């Protein structure tokens, strides 16, 4: 079969798949569409009036957008948690679901790039970052490094999933000579994107809260908690709503890995807190602002302790094997991990890093409504992309959607076929 014909079939078939779904599917898409529209309108206002309609100011010059960017880089990097056991230890139960981790990584990177785009003052000059038309200050600027590694990571994951899905659609097995090296490369790249993103903050001596060498390892540890937390929920949804089979063993294994990552995350946080509070130099100011507030400035204190509580709760749940196998507790653990890491790495990293500012001024930042709407829009767009990709990818991997003619079965997502295994 010629490539063009097959590709035509793929496009038509995919369109048919994503346009067919039950009430819940359309309600979900409608919900995302509303958030995207609201975010788009808010962003249009931000472009015309300037970033002044956000709560950011010279004192706190980065806020909610960069916090979300940082968190999502972690989510993107976390696909590797699944890739390592799947390809290196050839652990079959996880291997089947690696592709969904990679789809999540692709969606997360798109969200990352969008969060950078909505944060910059001159989005019309985004191309200044893209040589040869632009000019990348490489290797001096860590942001230049970040642009590079994020794009490379995006391309690797995109090529791997497209190749695997395209071959499956064509009824063939993927080409090991292409997939295995790329997957192996994606492991150091995943560590790389998160390390470089940590270095982005880490390298700034002006901000003692970030200028701690524990930052990169702590970033990785928290990423390896939050990324799989999202994935575990997605996998359970897939299992619930499609005929896709995911073994309990795989889910329990991922939860176990998350317990170790969460332990490391808490340990590294503890090590940093010890150093700050015991040595009690003037650099402890920022950590104190996060956990205890400074004078009357206590906006973040509740969030700080909530994050600690959620992370400890998640660790407690994942470390006990019986709790991991209890579906309610497992999902409570996932949500706690997600929320804990999100607070920790969004607000908890950016805001205390910049408060008080370099000349001691305290400007208490809380995101404005415009920022919340734009951020919700970016998340919705990312989830929309992820949903549509899943809508096509699941039937392909189930062998229901393939190249020789129209799909044999109707799209799988709305099908109420009880999944095996539970």
């Amino acid at each position, binding site marked *: 079969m010629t490539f063009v014909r097959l590709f035509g079939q793929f496009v038509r078939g995919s369109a048919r798949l994503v346009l067919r779904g039950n009430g819940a599917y359309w309600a979900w898409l409608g919900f995302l569409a509303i958030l995207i529209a609201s975010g788009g309108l808010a962003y249009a206002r931000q472009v015309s009036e300037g970033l002044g309609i956000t709560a950011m100011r010279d004192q706190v010059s980065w806020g909610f957008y960069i916090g979300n960017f940082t968190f999502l880089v972690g989510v993107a990097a976390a696909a590797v948690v699944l890739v390592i056991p799947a390809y290196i230890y050839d652990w079959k139960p996880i291997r089947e679901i690696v592709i969904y981790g990679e789809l999540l990584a692709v969606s997360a990177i798109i969200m990352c790039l969008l969060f950078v785009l909505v944060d910059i003052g001159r989005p019309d000059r985004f191309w200044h970052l893209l040589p040869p038309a632009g000019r990348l200050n490489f290797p001096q600027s860590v942001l230049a490094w970040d642009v590079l590694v994020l794009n490379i990571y995006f391309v690797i994951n995109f090529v791997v999933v497209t190749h695997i899905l395209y071959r499956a659609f064509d009824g063939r097995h993927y080409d090991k000579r292409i997939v295995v090296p790329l997957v192996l490369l994606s492991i150091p790249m995943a560590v790389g994107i998160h390390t470089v993103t940590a270095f982005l903050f880490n390298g*700034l001596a002006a901000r003692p809260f970030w200028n701690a060498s524990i930052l990169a390892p702590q970033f990785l540890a928290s990423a390896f908690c939050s990324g799989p937390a999202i994935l575990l929920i997605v996998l359970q949804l897939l299992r619930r709503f499609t005929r896709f089979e995911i073994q309990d063993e795989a889910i329990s294994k991922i939860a176990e890995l998350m317990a170790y990552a969460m332990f490391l995350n808490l340990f590294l946080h503890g090590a940093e807190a010890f150093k700050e509070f015991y040595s009690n130099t003037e650099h402890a100011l920022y950590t104190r602002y996060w956990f205890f507030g400074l004078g009357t400035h206590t906006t973040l204190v509740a969030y700080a302790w909530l994050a600690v509580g959620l992370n400890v709760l998640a660790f407690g749940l994942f470390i006990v094997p019986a709790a991991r196998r209890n579906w309610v507790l497992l999902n409570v653990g996932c949500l706690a991990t997600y929320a804990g890491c999100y607070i920790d790495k969004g607000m908890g990293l950016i805001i205390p890093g910049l408060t008080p500012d370099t000349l001691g001024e305290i400007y208490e930042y809380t995101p404005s409504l415009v920022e919340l709407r734009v951020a919700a829009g970016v998340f919705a767009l990312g989830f929309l992309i992820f949903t549509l990709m899943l809508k096509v990818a699941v039937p392909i991997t189930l062998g229901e959607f393939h190249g020789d003619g129209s799909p044999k079965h109707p799209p799988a997502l709305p099908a109420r076929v009880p999944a095996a295994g539970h």
Partner: protein
Amino acid sequence: MEANGRRSGVTRRQFTTSAAAAAAGFVLTACGPKRLHEMSKDRLKRLIADMERKYAEQFGIAVHVADTPAMPGVEFAYALDISRCVGCRRCVYACVEENNQSRDPQVHWIRVFSMEKGKGVDFTEADPYYQPKEVPEEGHFYVPVACQQCRNAPCTKVCPTGATWTDADGIVVIDYDWCIGCRYCMAACPYGARHFNWSEPTIPKAQLNVNTHYLGNRPRPKGVVEKCTFCIQRTRNGRYPACVEVCPVGARKFGNLLDPESEIRYIIEHKRVMVLKEDLNTLPKFFYFYAT
């Protein structure tokens, strides 16, 4: 098709050739120098003429944009006598007027901190919003802070597009046409010296300083970063910065570090000078001293 081509007066060959030429031109331009200071003299002149035209339209008066390069054998430095400063903030507003900072929202390149005697230079205890009836206040002293023009500048290092750099005379400048407004430089600056145009800057037409420099005080658009340039439009023509001229107590000193006879060299060699946040190794060319 041929008939159509003839009727419109453009043959296919002509169309193809000019399209290819336009594409090649675009690619060459795109791959060529990006930042204003790297461009050929001719192209810079053309772009500056465009700027002047645009500003004239915007403000309704003629605006001059200079492209005066750094003078050879000159490296500028600044010294501020903390024992003389009375905290009157005349420098702050002279700077605003000279350098066309936005009046609404307010942008101040110089910030003056009121500090308590006995606590020393401690920014965590300092107050930039002091509003007494009279200055100096009893028991207080003042530390004005603007760009420290670091030799080892963290801001230029982190800029992802290279839109900010240290020019030959040591002035850290910004190309407002190349800055993407990512504000990484603001996170990197230990002195709060960089300011972002959060909204469209507004300057009343009557207050616009029409003598500008393309790397200095020309009006800025919203969404880019700006900062003190040692009054590049003045100092490259042998004048003092506006803040030095306006200071009523003579606390501000400025000159050429490479000239052994300059006042700045005298101060560095004879007074006890210090720099802010010395431990960060930024090597500022802005010194503080106590003359009395």
